[in-house]
């Protein structure tokens, strides 16, 4: 963290579905953010002169807060748990902020008519194993997917971490199935992928997160903000 800065840093999503929701959420909690222009990546809070706002990519916010680059942040709970679950450097102040809904869903090629539930993947894994192959699952969330699949007893899956265009992975051939965020499932359907009946691994909304490393001189302000967030 920049030690020269003596202000409390709150990191908010710069774009995407979470961005508008975050500003509106803060406003409802009595923290009104002033941004000079849409392109500017810094902002102020009228009620708290010792707070500065930085707008970042939502996916970068969990690690930035966890590493102490920011004191507070708003991001998707899925993003936070993927990157920082169990961390001693940060924690979730409040989840389910009632915006930024997303579902992490496992989908298989529609032609796999024998696979309708997560449970079927156990046997398909075994089929792959018998043929000296591995069932490969492409995802941006390898940690959450691993944990959730283990809960279902699906352990023999090779996770392929990919950053975008996951729906094309089975067609291109670098993965057999995918686990991705979806709202309506339309993109999956258009790419001949079918979500499994019980394939929702994670149901997520936006979350307010905090660093555990807040300087003592900013404690009072940080406590006031947490109080407002929890109201």
């Amino acid at each position, binding site marked *: 963290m920049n030690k020269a800065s003596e202000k409390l840093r709150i990191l908010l999503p710069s774009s995407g579905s979470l961005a508008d929701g975050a500003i509106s959420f803060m406003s409802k909690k009595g923290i009104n953010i002033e941004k000079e222009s849409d392109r500017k990546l810094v902002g102020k809070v009228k009620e708290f002169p010792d707070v500065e706002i930085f707008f970042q990519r939502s996916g970068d916010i969990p690690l930035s807060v966890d590493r102490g680059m920011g004191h507070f942040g708003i991001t998707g709970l899925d993003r936070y748990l993927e990157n920082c679950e169990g961390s*001693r450097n940060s924690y979730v102040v409040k989840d389910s902020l009632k915006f930024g809904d997303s579902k992490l869903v496992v989908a298989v090629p*529609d032609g796999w008519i024998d696979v309708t*539930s997560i*449970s079927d993947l156990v046997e398909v894994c075994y089929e792959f194993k018998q043929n000296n192959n591995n069932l490969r699952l492409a995802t941006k969330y390898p940690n959450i997917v*691993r*944990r959730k699949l283990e809960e279902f007893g699906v*352990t*023999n899956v090779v996770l392929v971490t990919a950053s975008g265009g996951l729906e094309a992975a089975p067609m291109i051939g670098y993965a057999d199935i995918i686990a991705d965020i979806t709202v309506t499932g339309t993109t999956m359907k258009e790419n001949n992928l079918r979500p499994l009946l*019980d394939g929702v691994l994670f149901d997520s909304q936006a979350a307010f997160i905090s660093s555990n490393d807040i300087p003592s001189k900013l404690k009072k302000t940080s406590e006031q903000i947490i109080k407002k967030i929890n109201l």
Partner: protein
Amino acid sequence: MNNSDNKVLRLNNFEDFGPSRLKLLKYIENNCLEYLINSGYSNVDPPILESADLFFKKSLGSTSSSTYTFMDLENQLVSMRPDFTASVIRLIFDNSQKKESMNKVCYSGPVFRYEPATSKSMQIYQVGAEFLGQKGNDSDLELLSNSIKCLDLSGVKNYKIDLGNVGIVREFILEKGFGNSIAELILNNLGNFNKKNWEKNLIYKANQLNLIRLSNNNENDSLSYESILNDYKDRLSLNLGMRTQKDIINRFAGKVASQVTMEEIKECIDLVKKIMSMNIEEFLNNNGNDLNTKSCNEFRILLKNIQNILGEKRSLSLNFSLTRNLAYYNGIVFDVKSNQGIILGGGGRYDDLPSRLGYDFDKGCLGFALNLTKTTEVIGY
């Protein structure tokens, strides 16, 4: 600004080894390597960094969330080795066409792991061996004997060995007429055997997995290959990835037929519980019909041999629920523990691993490793 603000601290959970601990570690490492080399093992040293796929293939992905994996400067997905086994097997086969052909190798060095459950990052120093090319009791005995010898050379005074056999549990389930899916379910959950509600959770998972049918009658038993192909021809003509139409149709038809009733799954669980609850004496003295197979009898001989090697001061426990949290073991599996229960090492048989890594080899594969970080901690320095 205070100058101490600029200090860069050691990463959490990564340990420094001072002179006395390092001296002890090197002493044990050298003793173990010397013994293994004199026993016909070639000393090798694979790189710390390998293609991530090597480790994913080895564990079928089960260690992917505990392995340090990142894109390197050439945009390749690479991992710091979480253990030596996969690297050493790759090294053996890479060298198999050269003069330095070998089937027994030993190694030492650091491995790197991250434990998501405890958020702990760790560098662990290991010494161990891999043995390729033999199946059966003789190689199992050699593996265990070498592990015991290395422990004795390390200077650990008191330790105990937990020994299980994943292969026997699998064989037991299959011989009772239950399919691979039931066997996989039970084997994947062996590690939780001693936890509360094991049986209840297993039945819950079997239900989740659609392995239990609700009635004895099933209207779909008569589904033929042709009728399935005809009914689903549009979907079956889409991209199926690495699966074939035949794979899918056969499984679709078999899915219904392979379901068991609630009574049958309970019967299977009761049988597994019976074998899991046995202590070593009960297993050695029980050669009834259920446990009179060739592999059970061989395992009895192995247990007796290990008991003789260990003598009376160090104990051997039979633990069929031992899986070492890795899906690739297919025969014996063991943990070595200090008297305080700290795991000092372990290993087992994983005959399918070379083929899983892409090598055409089915002649047996097994290995062990000692955790020198823990061993030095237990001995004291």
